[in-house]
């Protein structure tokens, strides 16, 4: 649907929240800084729908709100046509809001209960002076009819409507100012499937009729797949995968995208796909993992360059190292606390506890592991850990992958870009992206 005309270009957008409370904390520099959106690049083309997906807390809403300046971004730019939204002030910003609009997730909270529907929709008309005051009522009626309600509904209050109808009112309010670009933040998440279908159809019709562009935020991938021309997948504040919908669903994709896709409950009792269940939960954005942020949960970790190991083995070795690092000594490890253990048993028990296979399938790696386990069994846990670390550090842990096109052929909106070392040519990333601490401080 997209005709390649760039509408919005987001570059290096960052949004940082601080957990400081009060002036004193701020002066003393207490509190944690949480980077909810961390250097996101994104393009939206005219007439297209870009789907933005990811787990809760990954920064989807923060990103959308930062673009529209509903919250202030910490750094980066969002250029809409020729205007940088991040630098707009006062009336210029207000004027721009006639072009870009936002539909909120919860239709029960985003409508003022004390205003009639006519006032809710009409307010946008009067703020932006879209139509002369004496034509406002007529225009409100038209808008309500456009979204599938009746003009007579204008005199009613929000509580008189069902969830689906309220979402239609929210959409009518967004349409009132005749925008070009609408952010839809989980517009159907709170609705029943039968009602959801109606809203999705309406959005599609409006897009065709008015040539709208959408940024559609959702966590239900089957819905996003249905509406989006392109999809961007977010994880811990970063875009990790971005491309045309079909390519993400059918082609090679980021391991996180694959996991998300496989987790969709398929409405088919005979469906027998392999569900990829991710280990652990999303790490705290206050302290994101080093290297690739997904490496703590990724089922497809890369083998260290020197060896040839299965992803599951790499994962097990990583867990073993974490276990050793957290242990105060051999006693606190999940092995048999027998006071006089056979050294071999301890080694086997350690392998067992962290699911390390009995044979790594690589002789050189096996030799290193055995020496390390012997050291650990002898009681020197820290040396064992250090030895494992120097031998088995995967590139996923150390190097931050960049969002790069997987095929050089297509350009523009059809480019499929993935931030994963599996898609690096050499398998390892040499020119490392600078760590956050080294970058210049952002303006406040």
């Amino acid at each position, binding site marked *: 649907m997209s005709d390649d005309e760039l509408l919005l270009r987001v570059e290096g957008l960052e949004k940082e929240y601080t957990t400081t409370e009060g002036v004193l904390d701020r002066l003393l520099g207490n509190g944690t800084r949480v980077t909810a959106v961390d250097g996101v690049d994104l393009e939206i083309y005219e007439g297209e729908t870009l789907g933005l997906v990811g787990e809760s807390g990954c920064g989807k809403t923060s990103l959308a709100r930062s673009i529209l300046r509903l919250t202030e971004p910490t750094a980066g730019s969002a250029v809409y046509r020729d205007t940088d939204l991040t630098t707009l002030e006062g009336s210029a910003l207000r004027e721009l809001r006639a072009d870009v609009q936002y539909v909120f997730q919860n239709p029960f909270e985003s409508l003022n209960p004390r205003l009639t529907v006519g006032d809710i929709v009409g307010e946008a008309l009067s703020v932006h002076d879209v139509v002369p005051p004496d034509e406002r009522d007529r225009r409100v009626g038209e808008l309500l009819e456009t979204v599938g309600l009746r003009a007579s509904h204008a005199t009613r209050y929000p509580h008189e409507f069902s969830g689906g109808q309220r979402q239609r009112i929210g959409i009518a309010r967004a349409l009132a100012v005749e925008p070009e670009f609408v952010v839809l933040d989980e517009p159907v998440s709170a609705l029943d*499937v039968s009602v959801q279908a109606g809203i999705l159809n309406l959005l*599609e019709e409006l897009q065709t009729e008015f040539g709208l562009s959408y940024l559609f935020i959702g966590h239900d991938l089957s819905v996003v*797949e249905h509406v989006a021309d392109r999809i961007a997948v977010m994880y811990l504040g970063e875009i990790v995968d971005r491309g045309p919908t079909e390519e993400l669903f059918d082609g090679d994709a980021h391991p996180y995208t694959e996991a998300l896709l496989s987790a969709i409950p*398929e409405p088919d009792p005979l469906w027998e796909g*392999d569900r990829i269940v991710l280990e652990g939960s999303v790490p705290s954005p206050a302290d994101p993992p080093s290297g690739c942020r997904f490496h703590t949960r990724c089922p497809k970790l890369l083998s260290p360059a020197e060896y040839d190991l299965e992803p599951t083995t790499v994962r097990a070795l990583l867990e073993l190292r974490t276990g050793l690092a957290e242990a105060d000594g051999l006693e606190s490890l999940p092995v048999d606390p027998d006071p006089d253990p056979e050294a071999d048993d301890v080694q086997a028990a350690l392998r067992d506890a962290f699911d390390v296979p009995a044979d790594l399938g690589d002789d050189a790696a096996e030799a290193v592991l055995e020496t390390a386990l012997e050291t650990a069994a002898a009681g020197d846990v820290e040396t064992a850990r250090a030895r494992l670390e120097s031998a088995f550090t995967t590139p996923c842990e150390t190097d931050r992958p960049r969002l790069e096109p997987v095929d050089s052929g297509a350009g523009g909106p059809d480019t499929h870009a993935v931030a994963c070392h599996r898609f690096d040519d050499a398998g390892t990333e040499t020119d490392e992206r600078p760590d956050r601490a080294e970058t210049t401080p952002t303006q406040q």
Partner: protein
Amino acid sequence: MALLEVEDLVVQFYTEDGTVRAVDGISYEIDRGETVALVGESGAGKSVTCLSLLRLLERPGEIVSGEIRFDGRDVLGLSDEELRDLRGNEIAMVFQDPSAALNPVYTVGEQIAEAIRAHEDVTDETARRRAIDLLERVEIPDAASRYSEYPHEFSGGMQQRVVIAMALSCEPDLLVCDEPTTALDVTIEAGILELLEDLAAEFDTAIQLVSHDLGVVAGLCDRVQVMYAGEIVERAPTEELYYDPKHPYTVGLMASIPRIGDDRDELPTIPGSMPDLVDVPTGCRFHPRCPYAEEACRLRAPSLVDVETGVPADEPAPNDHLAACHEYTDDLVDGLDYEVVVEDGGGLE
């Protein structure tokens, strides 16, 4: 005898606008170890049915008539003492929002141990050990140390695991799960669903699952009952319901889900919305929204009949396929006209 038998249950809410019949004469049964789903739009009466099973309804709600028998005992006639014994011990419940189901000022371990102590005469130490075992059973890593953490230190998915552990603490025969994964991300949901499936098999626990997500139901349940405006309008084994739905409402519901890999531009919708339960439509409650509605539908309410024979089933077997539509008693002039297309290769792999 089935584990749970619900007969002609009627639940009303007395509101300013009038009397709302949230559940209107539903009957069903669940056998031991069976997983049965209740699906339908919000307001269909699914959650009210669940709460009724445990007599957890609060004013202005009231069970007006009908019977609920659990293991042969009349639940509605139990004394407070007996009811306490039933709850948790024999029927346990998992709610939609785990953060609301857990007490924020007690550690998660204590809350589970408390449930065990309330039902069994055990020492504090035994209760503690069993609570840790349960936390391990629901795959919470490092259970012994997380025993003494508070609910806010757990993520949503982990909280729901704690709630499941608590529900299983007394090895109930029936687990009532009201939208157990609705508040969770898909990746977390997948894990919880697998856990429920494993546990149900291991403890031979029957599950009554309430969900609006037909994908979740397809993966977990043996049988499905579709509710509409307080009534059960169709019941069938899961496969039959998905591949051969008989009630027009079920058909509409199935058609309206966006599926991965389909390229329909427009999703079929069910026009209109759920009727106001203060003043339900005459005849078939679905007729104002039904594309096949005829004069008969407006005049007479259809009964839940076997779709093959057209005879109402007094004691339906688990595999019976029943639907409440005049089509199956040959009362429709034009009949139903739809086609179910099962596409190969829809979805992944």
